């Protein structure tokens, strides 16, 4: 008896990739999962940081999917390599800074490298024609196959019958008749198939799973690039864009103001890299100052810190300012009135 064919499935943690992998497993193919971590993934980080989110069920959805399927899941750190996708996407951005088509091409390309290195036969994705406005269209899905290098070794089991036959179908590794012809934005066919397979409790993230699709996040990342004069970032940069209020009162510095206990605790890990402020006379946020600040700037930063503390209505608030060298001093300041904070300061 011949060895079963082997496929790797791109597992995002959502329903489509769960179903796509399962549909192929139904045909006796040995499947393993691969999940890419870009640094911009919504799940995990924000839940870990924000205290209010700690009541949410703790699970990594990609790992949960792997457990449902009974397959191995390889989680791959692509943070550094992914920068080229974010900074200079060949096919451009979506509504915000989301380079969805380049992202899909990049991930399928990484999966293609993986199957070649590990002796697997083909790649599975949960893509559905018409599901996404940029990367999952009838005209862009062939682009993903071609530019990723995967070619006809890329199978989309949920939309396969709307697409030309792939190598696994031509070779008889997969029965095309047992693949699907889903299309469009409706989730009903997927939900019905999930019910048929007995899947319950799968993730249905509202607003996508990538921070680059978020308008507010895109504004903050654009501000970071513009003020640095270069479209570069590291992991700490993109993590800090996920936490706190970001205010830029002057072109040469911005403040990151913790919104709650969980964020303050997370930001404490960055104190030594930034000038930071914290109210002493009242409870309040940890504030990181990103940039260069003179004496007047520090006074303004302290007044803003006081504004977002419990002493916002007090006449004076004592704020401790600590430099990057660890030297601390205190300032007695009047909280900046809300009316003196222009809306343009908020990123």
């Amino acid at each position, binding site marked *: 008896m011949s060895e079963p064919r082997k496929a790797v499935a791109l597992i995002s943690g959502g329903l489509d990739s769960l179903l796509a992998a399962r549909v192929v497993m139904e045909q006796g193919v040995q499947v393993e999962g691969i*999940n890419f*971590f870009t640094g911009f993934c919504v799940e*995990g*980080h924000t*839940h*870990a*940081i924000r205290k209010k989110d*700690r009541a949410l069920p*703790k*699970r*990594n959805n*990609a*790992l*949960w999917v*792997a*457990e449902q399927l*009974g*397959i*191995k*899941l*390889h*989680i*791959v*750190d692509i943070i550094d390599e992914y920068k080229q996708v974010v900074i200079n996407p060949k096919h451009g951005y979506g509504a915000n800074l989301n380079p969805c088509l380049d992202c899909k091409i990049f991930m399928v390309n990484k999966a293609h490298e993986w199957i070649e290195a590990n002796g697997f036969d083909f790649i599975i994705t949960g893509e559905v024609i018409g599901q996404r406005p940029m990367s999952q269209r009838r005209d862009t899905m062939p682009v993903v196959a071609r530019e990723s290098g995967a070619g006809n070794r890329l199978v989309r089991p949920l939309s396969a019958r709307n697409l030309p036959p792939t190598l696994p179908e031509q070779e008889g590794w997969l029965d095309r008749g047992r693949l699907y012809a889903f299309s469009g934005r409706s989730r009903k066919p997927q939900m019905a198939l999930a019910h048929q397979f007995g899947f319950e409790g799968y993730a249905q993230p509202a607003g996508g799973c990538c921070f680059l699709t978020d308008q507010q996040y895109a504004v903050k990342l654009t501000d970071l690039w513009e003020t640095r004069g270069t479209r570069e970032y590291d992991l700490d940069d993109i*993590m800090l864009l996920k936490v706190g209020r970001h205010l830029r009162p002057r072109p040469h510095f911005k403040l990151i103001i913790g919104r709650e206990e969980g964020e303050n605790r997370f930001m404490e*890990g960055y104190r030594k890299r930034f000038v930071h402020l914290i109210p002493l006379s009242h409870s309040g946020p940890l504030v990181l100052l990103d940039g260069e600040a003179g004496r007047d700037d520090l006074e303004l930063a302290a007044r803003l810190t006081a504004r977002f503390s419990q002493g916002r209505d007090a006449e004076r608030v004592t704020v401790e300012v600590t430099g990057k060298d660890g030297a601390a001093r205190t300032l007695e300041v009047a909280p900046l009135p809300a009316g003196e904070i222009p809306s343009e300061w908020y990123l």
Partner: protein
Amino acid sequence: MSTETVDARHLLCPLPVIRTQDAMARLTPGDSVRVLCTDPGAIHDIPAWCRVHGHEVCDIAEQDGDILITVRFGGT
């Protein structure tokens, strides 16, 4: 049998899982990895990763905000 220690403190999930996975790739059945981390999510994610790969979580200990998870290579 060898034991490797991974310092994943101040990293948020899934990075502690990825660091564990990378360390396990260098080991053989019976070896262990001690993962030091601070993200509470690792308490759920590292055991989940171990379950899908057939590895064993030997111990999870918490002290002063640090979490120490000991994983044994399961031979798959």
